[in-house]
């Protein structure tokens, strides 16, 4: 081992995001320009950078989460992907996907790493430990 890096995850690859949804059993709604949420921002969480209250509820695509009333908006502006979601408990997203959508972030990170590795022609071996942590080993030779 030569170095260890801790990453700040950024959602940048739509194909990997779709694969992450598939992995978790979420339903990708191509071209759906609104998502279900509380419909009123009450200031309980910060808005994404560059977004105003008026932008909420609008998106480029949406993700339906089985078991949750609310949906996730996938908004694309200037090639940047922003996930819009309302974690108010009645909406059920937090119960299904964990705090801050941790399970979706986990699935996305694994799928994007796997996609990039496979495009480079490397083998990937995936495993999950008892704590639910997923490990992807990319074999380069």
């Amino acid at each position: 081992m030569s170095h260890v890096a801790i990453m700040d995850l950024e959602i940048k690859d739509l194909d990997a995001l779709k694969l992450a949804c598939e992995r978790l059993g979420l339903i990708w709604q191509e071209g759906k320009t609104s998502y279900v949420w509380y419909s009123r921002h009450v200031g309980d969480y910060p808005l994404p950078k560059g977004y105003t209250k008026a932008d909420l509820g609008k998106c480029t695509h949406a993700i339906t989460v089985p078991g949750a009333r609310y949906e996730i908006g996938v908004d694309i502006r200037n090639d940047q992907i922003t996930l819009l979601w309302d974690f108010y408990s009645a909406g059920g997203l937090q119960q299904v996907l964990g705090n801050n959508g941790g399970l979706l972030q986990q699935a996305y990170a694994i799928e994007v790493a796997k996609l990039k590795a496979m495009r480079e022609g490397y083998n990937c071996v995936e495993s999950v430990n008892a704590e639910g942590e997923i490990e992807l080993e990319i074999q380069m030779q």
Partner: protein
Amino acid sequence: MKKIIVKVTKEGKVTVKTEGFSGSSCMEGSKFIEEALGSTSSMEHTNEYYQESEMTEDTCLKQ
């Protein structure tokens, strides 16, 4: 074998480790994965990283 190991917790915390690279070549080797994942918030070089770098330097000096 050169390996990149990506670990992701249920909370979405992502760690990238490299194994089997010599010296600082690990930085270049894992760059494509790290760029795909986002930005690096912190990085730690292991003892092995420095040992291997020193060995490489020493070998070069002797040649």
